[in-house]
């Protein structure tokens, strides 16, 4: 690796100040499972690695005033997945976060890192989008918020300014008759980057017979994870049936803009987008109805 500096500030203010000083030559170090590999391979060449794991706001999980959850950006997935509240309220997030790498990666990798690394195939991002997660960002000029779905601006590029870092992800409080689910497709059973992944969040009527609303997000089928807007909007008012799900899945797949690369072909990805959307919606519906998913 090239010669690199390391700093581990204990406060958010110190971290922001350091970022401002370094004007883009610093990279955030949370779990390190992406940035260390990239620095080692010369794909990124930061002058400074800014370790954020000593900053309390980035490593805590706490309840928000509105009953939602605020998850520090650097919380390791293993801790997230073991957290009772998260598992109970946002099982789709567990499904996604728990797939980021194998056991040893899970001890270190974080939602914040997965999101900010902005791989089009990132496993956490469709789930965050389907759940309506919001990014809490701190920078030199103060704090701001950004919907999770707007963080990725291109493959490997995010919306943070040079002086900003992601502090936490805020999940809205769960709504009655709502649930989400996540699934991905990989050639092996573990340890792979998704060829396609999908998360769907649905809200049903109280009798479970009609869709009130939904959000379908697809990954690895475009330069960034994408919200299937038309498909999502089309859910409103439709009956909760397999035929609706099939129709919506087809619309979601049509929104996909996949490429062919060594991990998969465009045709395969488009096909999987339909398959996964269908499967994920069925599970989200079952979950929303209170059944064991």
């Amino acid at each position, binding site marked *: 690796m090239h010669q690199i500096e390391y700093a581990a500030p204990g406060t958010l203010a110190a971290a922001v100040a350091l970022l401002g000083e370094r004007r883009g030559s610093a990279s955030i170090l949370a779990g390190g499972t992406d940035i260390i590999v990239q620095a080692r391979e010369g794909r990124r060449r930061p002058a400074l690695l800014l370790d954020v794991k000593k900053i309390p706001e980035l490593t805590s999980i706490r309840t928000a005033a509105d009953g939602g959850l605020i998850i520090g950006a650097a919380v390791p997935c293993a801790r997230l997945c073991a957290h009772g509240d998260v598992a109970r309220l946002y099982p789709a997030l567990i499904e996604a976060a728990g797939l980021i790498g*194998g056991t040893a990666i899970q001890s270190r990798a974080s939602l914040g890192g997965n999101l900010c690394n902005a791989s089009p195939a990132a496993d956490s991002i469709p789930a965050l989008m389907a759940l309506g997660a919001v990014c809490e960002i701190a920078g030199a000029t103060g704090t701001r918020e950004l919907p999770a779905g707007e963080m990725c601006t291109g493959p490997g590029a995010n919306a943070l300014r040079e002086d900003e870092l992601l502090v936490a992800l805020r999940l809205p409080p769960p709504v009655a008759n709502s649930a989400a689910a996540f699934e991905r*497709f990989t050639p*092996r*059973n*573990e*340890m792979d980057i998704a060829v396609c992944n999908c998360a769907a969040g649905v809200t049903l009527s109280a009798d479970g017979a009609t869709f009130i609303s939904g959000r379908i997000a697809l990954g690895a089928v475009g330069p960034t994870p994408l919200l299937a807007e038309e498909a999502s909007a089309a859910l409103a008012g439709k009956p909760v049936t397999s035929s609706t799900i099939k129709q919506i899945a087809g619309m979601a797949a049509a929104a996909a803009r996949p490429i062919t690369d*060594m*991990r998969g072909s465009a*045709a*395969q990805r488009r096909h999987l987008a339909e398959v996964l959307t269908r499967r994920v919606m069925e599970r989200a519906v079952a979950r929303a109805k209170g059944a064991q998913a």
Partner: protein
Amino acid sequence: MTTEHKAPYRVIGTRPLRPDGADKVTGKAQFGADIRLSGMLYGRIKRSPHAHARIKRVDVSRAAALPGVHAVVTAADLPGAEDRVAELGEGSVNMRELSGNVLAHDKVLYRGHAIAAVAAVDAHVAGQAVDLIEVEYELLPPVLDARDAMRPEAPLLDKNRRTRSMAGPADGPSNVAAHYQFISGDPEEGFAEADVVVEREFATRMVHQGYIEPHAATASWSSDGQLTVWTCTQGAFAVRDQCVAILDIPVSKIRVIPTEIGGGFGGKTIVYLEPVAALLAKRTGRPVKLQMDRSEVFEATGPTSGVNARVRMGATREGRIVAADVELIYEAGAYPGSPVMAACMTALAPYEIANTKVDGYDVVVNKPKVAAYRAPGAPAAAFAVEQVVDELAEKLDIDPLRFRLANTSREGTRGPGGRPFPRIGHEECLEAALSSPHYNTPLEGPSRGRGVATGFWFNGGMRSSVTVIVNADGSVSLVEGSTDIGGSRAALAMQLAETLGVGIDDVRPSVADTDAVGYNDVTGGSRVTFATGIAVHEAGMEVRRQMTERAAAHWHVPASDITYEDGRLTCTSDAQKSATFREMALQVLRTGEPLVATGSIVGRGVGAAFSTQIADVEVDPETGKVQILRYTVVQDVGTAIHPAYVEGQMQGGAVQGIGWALNEEYCYDDQGRMANASFLDYRMPTALDVPMIDTIIVEVPNPRHPFGVRGVGEVPIVPPLAAIANAVYRATGVRQTQLPMSPRRILETTLGLS
């Protein structure tokens, strides 16, 4: 040599703890990269980013000037090696080409081809220095597919290369290094007799052995010009031979110490780092350690050939295969030497077919020079042949195992290379598969299928040498030179214990360096338990003879008066005069000459190995993903010296085959860059991708080994590619003629996705 010792055995067939096990579970065992010497420097290599180019200029000045750098070397620092071919046990190697592969002279022939090397205070500084080495290239068009390389207009890797064949060297230059042809009977007449003919074409991709330990070597020169090399290798003597040729130093000046080796499978039989480490160590006057990173292992060592195969086979209505015509095109990588000849010889070996024609082509392309990979050549050929056999059986409505049984090779059948098979156990394997619990459990459910396949592999003989030392307390040291890649030191110790009639705990094996034991050919070719076992037996018999002489002197009786049985010496004329091996050792070894024996042999009487395998799969029709539900390996091992290690070889080979079948491949772009040179995207099976692998050990003892041994290490990788393809066919109705059978390929072939 006949089987003098017969079952039931005392030690053979038991499952003692492996002697190297304690160090391996505690992290104490020393592997290639674990060597640390005082003053040691660290090396890194400059590699070509281009698949085909002329080297116009190399400027190392900025690298050499970097603080912390102690030396930079290039091919100019190597003496010219001769065009000498050496037989390495798993293939032959041209020394001049090997030297060029170690450090490129005027041309780079694949991306990753080594050009220069740096020694520095740590690997990071060395890596930074490598980035400062400037190379000017004249880019040349790369040729990346063997069939493209065979076209007359293809760019040539070497203008001096002429195709070798039985007709003599060809006139004009070619990328086809060799054409082999084997004919028996009259194939066209055979096909005319056939009621059913199946012809198919197949394609497989380059794959890697995937050993978890990257190559690592450390070199150090003494001030009187003695070179010592520590390396994780399958053959310390092979390393010595290759370094002698490449560095142009006398054999007496180099000692190679094999460390423990973290997997080889054939890929650690030729040198990559050792001569470079030696050059850097000479230049700096300090020990130098070179270690590859994972991407270098993929791009710059020796994967195995991607293959294009065409197979045509014909059978009669009654189920007799009457003709076979096989064409095999194997990519050799940058230099000649694909395993196509072995593929030609093994492809049809399980069957007795009167009329056969096999053509094999060894073709160079701009990819790394291929090296041996477990039964080199055979798995891809079996992928093709075993599917055509399967299709014939289906068309004839005969059970696939019974069809194979009806055509099986037996003792006396004309085998590979035209020699009749000795006693072999293919028939027994097929019978065992037919009566196995797996085969007799119906497979139910949609999208599920069962496939079978069978395979053959030679066993190697070659040279082995061991020394046996009897210690004063009656324990025995076994000094051998076959590096242990699968548990062979345990199997050899067991054969010695059996020969001497002592307990396994009384035998202490060690793998020695090139100064401490006689010549040993590489550990490969499934030869060690067999051939080094013969050497061990020979040495053991010599120990018995010497111990008998000592007893005779001790008891004042003629040696002919003493029997040696079950580890006990007894005087036939006076039963009171009786002692165990240990008791006698305690009596006679405190004074008198040390008791040392050697066994040095060329292994003869190889047994040949067969394996038959059964795979149950489920294919998700919507995603194309294949799940292995159940897998059984049946294999004739001759005699299972250590059943647990034999099972381990069967299971390990099968799972490598599963990976090869389902997901492993080198993904190249059109410039010859490997896109997936990491364990993330080169997808080897994980523990979650395979079920338990059931094993059925068949024992048809090899009559020409003292304990009936057949080599077991390689044949288990031969059938899985076809067994899974046959299973996928039954699950989906579509025959997969290309590897890997990735989810993408299965979707493309079953759903017509393009």
